[in-house]
């Protein structure tokens, strides 16, 4: 694997995580629990789509075959998407979306803090913009965890169930593939493994402050970053890619 191939792959992973999470959040549009939260979730979705656009645009440049961000986002088959499985989990109920956002945002907070120091200036620039957004996503989901966890018996139960159900998809975020090892060596990427302890500490703090128990299960599901997805992914793509597949080159 050349440095260029590894960077392309690395950018696709980062970009796909943002793209798929954006899609899931956008499913809340017009379905939020209150108008204010509807806007909050779709605002976060827009932050993600902006980040995905930047990362996929840069991935296309690095690959050098003239692929645009749109082509990468809407024309690849399922096994060529490299997002973590947690991103493609269905939006579920509001507690599920909040738990998912906390688990992802805590990871992204650590990841993008590191990527701000990437030797690749473009990636460092994208990270510098992303980190401000991520801080807000993290704060927003943390505050909602407090409210749901310490709210009613039902809201606590729903949040606990969501955390239990999502837990086995969190470990994948800290895996290191061959492309990530190479990116780490080149001081472009970040050591995911090194983030895990800090992540766990931060997540544990928020959840215990929300009266939520940390799941003890240690089994982890993975495969997303190798292109092996859950059954959810095909459904996402059939909806997300429909327009570009039906009307190739369609523009706004």
């Amino acid at each position, binding site marked *: 694997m050349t440095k260029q191939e590894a960077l392309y792959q690395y950018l696709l992973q980062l970009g796909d995580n943002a793209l798929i999470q954006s899609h899931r959040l956008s499913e809340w549009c017009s379905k939020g629990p209150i*108008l204010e939260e509807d806007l*909050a979730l779709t605002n976060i979705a827009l932050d993600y789509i902006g980040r995905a656009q930047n990362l996929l645009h840069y991935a296309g440049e690095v690959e050098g075959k003239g692929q645009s961000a749109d082509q990468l986002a809407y024309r690849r088959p399922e096994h060529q998407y490299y997002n973590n499985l947690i991103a493609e989990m269905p939006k579920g109920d509001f507690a599920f979306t909040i738990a998912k956002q906390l688990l992802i945002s805590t990871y992204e907070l650590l990841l993008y803090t590191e990527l701000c120091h990437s030797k690749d200036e473009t990636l460092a620039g994208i990270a510098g913009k992303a980190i401000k957004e991520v801080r807000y996503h993290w704060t927003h989901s943390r505050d909602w965890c407090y*409210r749901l966890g310490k709210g009613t018996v039902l809201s606590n139960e729903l949040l606990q169930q969501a955390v239990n159900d999502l837990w086995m998809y969190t470990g994948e975020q800290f895996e290191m593939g061959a492309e990530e090892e190479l990116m780490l060596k080149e001081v472009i990427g970040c050591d995911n493994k090194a983030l895990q302890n800090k992540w766990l500490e931060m997540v544990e703090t928020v959840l215990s402050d929300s009266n939520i128990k940390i799941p003890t299960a240690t089994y982890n599901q993975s495969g997303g970053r190798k292109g092996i997805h859950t059954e959810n992914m095909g459904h996402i793509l059939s909806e997300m890619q429909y327009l570009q597949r039906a009307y190739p080159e369609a523009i706004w």
Partner: protein
Amino acid sequence: MSTDTQLDLWEVFIQSRPGSHYTHAGSVHASDNQMALQNARDIYTRRNEGTSIWVVPAKYVSASNAEDAGMFFDPSNDKMYRHPTFYVMPEGAKQI
């Protein structure tokens, strides 16, 4: 009008740039001050309108009564001399 069941109402004030006054932007629903600030941020500063936000529980806003309008406001109708229009604006002063 049906009863508002969506959490408490908060009034939102936005400062558009450092040093300038806060302007009433609208209102949001929220259960606490942090949620009110975040909701205000998401609704009223999406297009770069603000550098700072105040939120105030709407129940703490005291409003004047419409029937007091005559007593409150009419007496200032004919006091032209209160308008600072007889002064020369200092050169470069923008915030007066």
